[in-house]
C-alpha cells in the first residue's frame, strides 16, 4: 500500500445546504429528536459544515479523472450537520471509478487508522481515505470540538513513485500503558531507520517523547501534518494518535517522503 497523493483544506462558514430553509427545518427536527432521549436539547441557530461539501472539494483535488478509484473510506468522529445523508454513497458518484464507498465512525480518533487498515486489507489498485471534522454541534457541547472545519484526502495505491505505508492499532490501552506500546510501535514501524515521529496532542499528553501537532483538530491533526510532510524532506514519517476515552492507540508510517 502506497500513498500516492495527499491534499488538505480548511473550510470557512457554514454548509451551503443550511441556506435552504426547508432543509434547515428538517435537520433541526432531526437533531431535536435525537438529542431528547439523551437529556439534552437542540440549540437554536443551526450552524456547521457538511462532510459532503467538504469531501467533494477534497476528492476533486486529490484524484484525477485518469485515476479510477476502487475503494473510498470516509472517516469522521464529530458528526455532520446533514445527519441523514449517505455521504459516502454520494461521493462514490463523484469519484472517478465509482468506488465501493462507506463511512467509518463511532471510533474517535481511531477511525482514520481503521479506514487505512481496511484499505490495506482490500489491497485494491487505488483507494481514497478522506478524514473530516467540523466544528459545530446543534446542542450544548460536552466535549472539546475542533477549532475549525478541516479535511484531508489521501490517495493510496500502487502508483509509480508512491510511498510505502504501514500501521499499528492497539485497543483498550490505559494511559499508563501508552509509553511502552508506543515506543514499540514506533520502533517496529521505523525498522532501524531515522523517522520523523509526529504525535497528536492527546498522545503527546501521555507520551511526550516526540513533537506534537497543534491542539484543536482532534481527528485530522496528524493527517493534516502527514499531508504537509508529503512534500517535505523526511525519509520516513510516523504519525500517532491516542483516544483516551475509547482507549485506542494508533500509528501509521509513510516511508520515502521527499
Amino acid at each position, binding site marked *: 500500500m502506497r500513498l500516492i497523493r495527499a491534499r488538505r483544506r480548511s473550510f470557512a462558514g457554514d454548509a451551503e445546504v443550511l441556506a435552504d430553509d426547508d432543509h434547515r427545518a*428538517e435537520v433541526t*427536527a*432531526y437533531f431535536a*429528536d*435525537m*438529542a431528547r*432521549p*439523551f437529556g*439534552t436539547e437542540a440549540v437554536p441557530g443551526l450552524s456547521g459544515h457538511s462532510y*459532503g461539501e467538504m469531501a467533494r472539494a477534497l476528492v476533486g483535488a486529490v484524484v484525477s479523472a485518469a485515476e479510477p478509484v476502487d475503494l473510498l473510506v*470516509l472517516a469522521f*468522529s*464529530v*458528526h*455532520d450537520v446533514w*445527519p*441523514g*445523508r*449517505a*455521504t*459516502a*454513497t*454520494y*461521493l*462514490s*458518484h*463523484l469519484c472517478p471509478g*465509482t468506488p*465501493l*464507498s*462507506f*463511512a*467509518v*465512525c*463511532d*471510533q*474517535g480518533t*481511531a*477511525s482514520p487508522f*481503521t479506514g487505512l*487498515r*481496511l484499505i*490495506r*486489507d*482490500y489491497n485494491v489498485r487505488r483507494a481514497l481515505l478522506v478524514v473530516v471534522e467540523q466544528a459545530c*454541534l446543534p*446542542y450544548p*457541547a*460536552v*466535549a472539546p470540538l475542533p477549532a475549525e472545519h478541516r479535511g484531508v484526502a489521501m490517495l493510496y495505491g500502487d502508483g509509480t513513485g508512491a510511498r510505502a505505508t504501514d500501521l499499528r*492499532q492497539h*485497543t*483498550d490501552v490505559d494511559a499508563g500503558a501508552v509509553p511502552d506500546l508506543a515506543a514499540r510501535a514506533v520502533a517496529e514501524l521505523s525498522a532501524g531507520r531515522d523517522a520523523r515521529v509526529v504525535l497528536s496532542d492527546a498522545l503527546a499528553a501521555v507520551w511526550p517523547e516526540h513533537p506534537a501537532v497543534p491542539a484543536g483538530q482532534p481527528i485530522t491533526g496528524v493527517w493534516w501534518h502527514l499531508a504537509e510532510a508529503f512534500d517535505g524532506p523526511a525519509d520516513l514519517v510516523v504519525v500517532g494518535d491516542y483516544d483516551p*476515552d*475509547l*482507549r*485506542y492507540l494508533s500509528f501509521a508510517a509513510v516511508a520515502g517522503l521527499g
Partner: protein
Amino acid sequence: MTALDAVSVYTPAFRVPLEDLAEPLGLTDIQVRLFRRFHGLDRIRFDPDRSLGELLRAAVDGLTALRGREDRVRYVVHGRAMPVVAPYPHNPLHDLCRELGLGHALAFTVTQQSCASGLLAVELAGRLLAADPTEGALALVLTGEKAFTRDAQLLPGTSLFGEGSAACLVSADGPRDRLLSYACAQRGEFDAEFGEQSERFQREYRSSLAEVMRRAVAEAGLALDDIRLVLPHNVNVVTWQRLCLLMDFPVQRVLLSNVPDHGHLFCADAFANHRTATEGGLLREGDHYLVATVGAGAGATFSAMVFQH
C-alpha cells in the same frame, strides 16, 4: 472463507398497527391503506423502553455461541443505516462493548450505505478476519436501530421502519453459513443534490437490484436456479413480487412472511429472515441462499450476498 458461525435476533413483542402511526407520521387514510393492501405491511415493531445500546444488547444476549469466546472477538462492527444517532461524544457501541467484556475488540460503525450497511459490515468483518493472523479470531457484527425521528420511521410511499436487532458471530473459516460472494452497486446520482429523482429511482429500483443479485449469483459460480431461498430486505411485498417477475424467479422462494409483522428493520432484516428460515427448516445443509437489500434515502446502494448453508 467468511462464515456466519451464529446469528441471534431480537424483535420486540410490542407492535403498532399501521393506523396508529398515521397521525404521528402525517399519513393520510389513503396512504395507510396503500401500505396495508398494496405493500403488505400490517404492524410495525417498536421497543420504546430500550435505548439503542439496550436494543443491540438484547440480540447479543441471545447469541449463546459467544459465551466463553469473548476473548476471541477481535472486531465489533455495527452496520447502521442512519449515520448519526447519538449526540457527540455519546458512543452506545463502545458502552455496549465494555458491558459485554469486549473492550479489547476494535469496534466501529460502518454506515452511509443506508440499509445496505449491514451486509457491508459482514463483508468488512470477513476482510479484517482474513488479514488477521490470530488463530480462531472472531468478529461480532451488530445491526439494529431506533426509529427515533420521522426520517427513521418512514420511507415515503415505500415502507415503514421498525425496531429490532441482530448479532452475528463471524469467523474466517467457520463450517456453517459460508459467504460465497458479495456484490454491491452504489448510485450516488440519486442524492438530493442532483434534484428530485424519486420517479427515476422507482423506475430503476428493481432492475438495479436484479443486476446485483445476478452478479452475486454469478460470482458464487452458481445459476439463479441454484438459489434455494432469497432472504430479502423487508421493504414491502409488492416490490419483491414484481422483482420476481422481472427475474423469472418464483416468489415462493422469497421469504416475505416477516414483512407484515415486522416492518423494515433497517439493516437487521437479513438476519431476522435468516432466523425464520433456519427455525422453519427452509434451508437444508448445503443449500445456497441469497441475501439482498437496498439502502435507499439520499443516494442508493444495492447489494447482495450468496451463502451456502
